[in-house]
């Protein structure tokens, strides 16, 4: 949390109107930007290979210069994403193991699932059915942690199987023969899962649901209004308030250009994502 507080420092100023609070650091927002641009790129270049018999795959391929172009960009995005993933790993280990920062591997602010997440999941679903009260979420809700770990796991699985195909003769030195067959199945199924999940579940859970519709801007601007903070993460709000640290999280209202820029980027990404989702489903059920 130290970096969050630092980032917020100096920006805190008293507002006559609504107050804004910092949720994501600049580095985290950039990481998400790299993640979703490379993911869109990987999906757009991976799907034509997965569904190479479909009409749109061939049209797309012939439009961009054939398979050679597609695989070039697929590998390019893969390398960029791998570098981003390694940077993230380094960041986590530096903060958690070198600086011994609390709350990285366990606790209210950790990405690691805990007993509260299990309880939240069940009480959330009871609330869906009108059988109970809405749970009070902490900094990261259970579905956000799931998103994080799904990407984390996907990165390892898709990355490993992808590099195994890219450098097959090298990997064949220590992998059994059938593994070379399996990596394509793993790569394409896991990739398909990631694409279907992100372009449907993540889009709706995070951006398109009524509370955030049409888009949750916090991942782009880094800040959210006090009301949003209270409603979406009441337990975190109360905890930070109880610790008397609310002031350290204060931030300025995002400037209009940033909002507009974020909207342009965000809507474009969601549009591309939904388009790819439709193409995927049409190829999946059409074949």
């Amino acid at each position, binding site marked *: 949390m130290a970096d969050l507080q630092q980032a917020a420092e100096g920006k805190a100023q008293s507002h006559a109107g609504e107050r804004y609070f910092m949720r994501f650091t600049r580095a985290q927002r950039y990481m998400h930007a790299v993640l979703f641009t490379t993911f869109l790129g990987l999906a757009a270049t991976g799907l034509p290979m997965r569904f*190479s018999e479909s009409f749109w*795959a061939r049209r797309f391929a012939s439009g961009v210069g054939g398979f050679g172009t597609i695989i070039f960009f697929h590998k390019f995005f893969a390398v960029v994403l791998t570098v981003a993933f390694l940077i993230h790993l380094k960041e986590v280990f530096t903060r958690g193991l070198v600086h011994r920062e609390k709350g990285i591997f366990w606790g209210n602010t950790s990405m690691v699932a805990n007993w509260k997440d299990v309880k939240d999941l069940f009480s959330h679903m009871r609330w869906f059915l009108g059988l109970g009260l809405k749970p009070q979420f902490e900094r990261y809700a259970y579905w956000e942690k799931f998103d994080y770990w799904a990407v984390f796991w996907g990165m390892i699985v898709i990355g490993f199987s992808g590099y195994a195909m890219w450098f097959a003769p090298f990997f*064949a030195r220590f992998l059994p023969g059938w593994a*070379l067959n399996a990596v394509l199945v793993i790569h394409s*199924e896991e990739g*398909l899962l990631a694409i279907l999940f992100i372009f449907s579940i993540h889009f709706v*859970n995070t951006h398109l649901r009524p509370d955030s519709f049409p888009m949750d801007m916090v991942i782009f601007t880094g800040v959210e209004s006090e009301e949003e903070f209270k409603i979406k993460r009441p337990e975190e709000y109360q905890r930070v308030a109880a610790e008397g640290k609310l002031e350290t999280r204060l931030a300025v209202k995002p400037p209009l250009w940033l909002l507009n820029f974020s909207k342009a980027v965000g809507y474009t990404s969601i549009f591309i994502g939904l388009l790819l989702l439709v193409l995927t489903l049409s190829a999946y059920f059409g074949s």
Partner: protein
Amino acid sequence: MKTASSIALAFGALLVFAIPRVAQADLDCLGCHGDKVDAGVFGASLHGSLKCGDCHSTIKDYPHPDPATPVKCESCHTGEAEGLVGSVHANRAEHPCTSCHGDAHAIFPKSDPRSAVYPLNIPRTCGNCHGNDALANKHGLPNVYPMYLDSIHGFALSREGLLVAANCQSCHGSHHILSHTNPQSPTYKSNIPKTCGSCHAGITANYLGGVHGKAVASGNLNAPVCSDCHTAHAILQPTEASFRMQSTPICGSCHKDKLSTYRDTFHSQLGSLGGYVETARCWDCHGAHDVLPASDPKSPIAPANLVATCGKCHAGANTSFVQYQPHANARNRKLNPALFYTRLFMNLLLAGVLTFFVIHTILWLVRSRYQQVKTRSAKGGNNG
């Protein structure tokens, strides 16, 4: 003056000898028929030494009956006439000699570029009929002329002027053309290797040593001959992208299970996108003409040869690398258990995660919307 008179003499001689072989009696015929028969061309033609009456034998006097009785070429050309009997062109009314040989008064030897049956002219001559959609439909034949023109044989002939390039009659013969359904025809399925082999001797020898060649030779007409893979008329250069793109399904039309498992692999996925025709197609691994089973040590897919075969594309291929199965079937538990369970696990993961979250998200959406509407109406009520 001497020069002038010798020029005059030469000019006179030219006048006399320019039509050297046309006799006086025939000059009488030309008096009327000069518009149809060019005495100069006729005189230079193969039949230039013949008199009109030699062919138009029923015409003795003038005036003579009109129309004249058709000329009987077979009175001299007995061999050719016998050849036509039983052929697809046997009907002389529909296919007079002139339909192929052209103007009867301008017949030249087939080695003469002026001849309608000169090798470079044959496709155009045959194309007069076989490039005609109406005729093709009438006889249930494909319109082969445009296909041939765009084929490698057609290019060699029309672009390079290559006399040895296969033209129509190289494969079909000339007078005794038989339907490909006739076992005597050079285009009958089992005769095709021999027909193509009359030029492509080396390839045919390879082919006859492979499984397909042996099968056809033993009477199995389901096995492919040259034209099954290369087509008959629209033959492409096999290294050409379009041939590489079109040919895998041809092998797959018989080897259906192999095509299906090939389609599951990366070789097929990227191969079908185009722009990357190098991707392994059937014959890159199996060989094209001398296809042999993996059990044959000479086969490129014999275990001992796999490193070399895969290594053609995959630099660094090793014995472990070639354990890869280019036709693995992830749906077959007995053949590929590891792959079967990998796929099963991945599918269960995919279906499980999506099913749970789709239900979760739909319930959430409905509940959130309900809550939102309720809150708003409550607020509206308060304000009012």
